[in-house]
């Protein structure tokens, strides 16, 4: 036991996540060689987002952190979404 409510993550858990990340990497390479038109970029981003979630929740251990850390991440993602949204609101309607 380390801190209140924190348990030690086993090596096996990390190895499973690593295998999943490797599989998703292979999947993103394969998917990028198939012509999906505009779909390609969304598939690539979807897989990258899934991989990020695995890294953030398991390797960075966000799932064991308090709610404050998770709210922080949501605030960050909202800021980035606003950033991207407003940029394209300008660029796409020029």
């Amino acid at each position, binding site marked *: 036991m*380390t801190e209140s409510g924190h348990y030690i993550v086993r*090596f096996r858990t990390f190895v499973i996540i690593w295998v999943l990340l*490797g599989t998703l*990497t292979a999947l993103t390479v394969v998917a990028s060689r198939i012509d999906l038109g505009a779909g390609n970029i969304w598939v690539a981003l979807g897989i990258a987002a899934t991989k990020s979630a695995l890294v953030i929740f398991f390797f960075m251990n966000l799932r064991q952190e308090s709610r404050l850390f998770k709210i922080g991440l949501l*605030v960050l993602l909202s800021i980035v979404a606003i950033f991207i949204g407003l940029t394209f609101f300008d660029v796409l309607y020029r």
Partner: protein
Amino acid sequence: MSHEHRDDTGARFGMWIFLYTEVILFSGLFILYAVSLSKFPEQYSIASHKLNIYFGGANTLVLLTSSLTMAMAITAIQRGRKKQTLILCCSTIGLALLFLVNKFFEWSAEIGHGIYPGSEELAAMGPGVTNFFNLYYFTAGLHGIHVIIGATLIGVVTVLVSKGRVNSEQYTLLENSALYWHLVDLVWIFLFPLYYLIL
């Protein structure tokens, strides 16, 4: 035993806040990428095909594995296994160096083909391709600097672990360097498909 004031959760949250700002920094570059991609879709595809998928793919696996060894190092120190922690930290640093060596060969090959910012050969390929490679060098270069900083940080923590200053009772420094290292991995997770894998 002297009483010590410590807030490990606060220290980790401070690191997370710093990492949020790092994400904002990189997201600015990714927004530039997105805007340019929508402006030059064909040229971006042509330019992307000039990048070597094998170098990019190998470096993806190298970084993913280094993230694994770093995550395992925390488990090792929590269990009080000093030697195992040192081995895992050194493996992470080794993989970081391998990443940089790959990057050196990759960039040498590209520069050898006349692809570098300000090159006349690159300018002759048109504004879209030039734009792609300028952004590629800037983003991958900034990422590379993060790899160097992260590996240095882990190196310092490794020395502290070997001296016993970072131990199973007090290892926030190791956790925070690991968090930084995972951010380096996260940036590459987006960089790889966006730059190397456009059809």
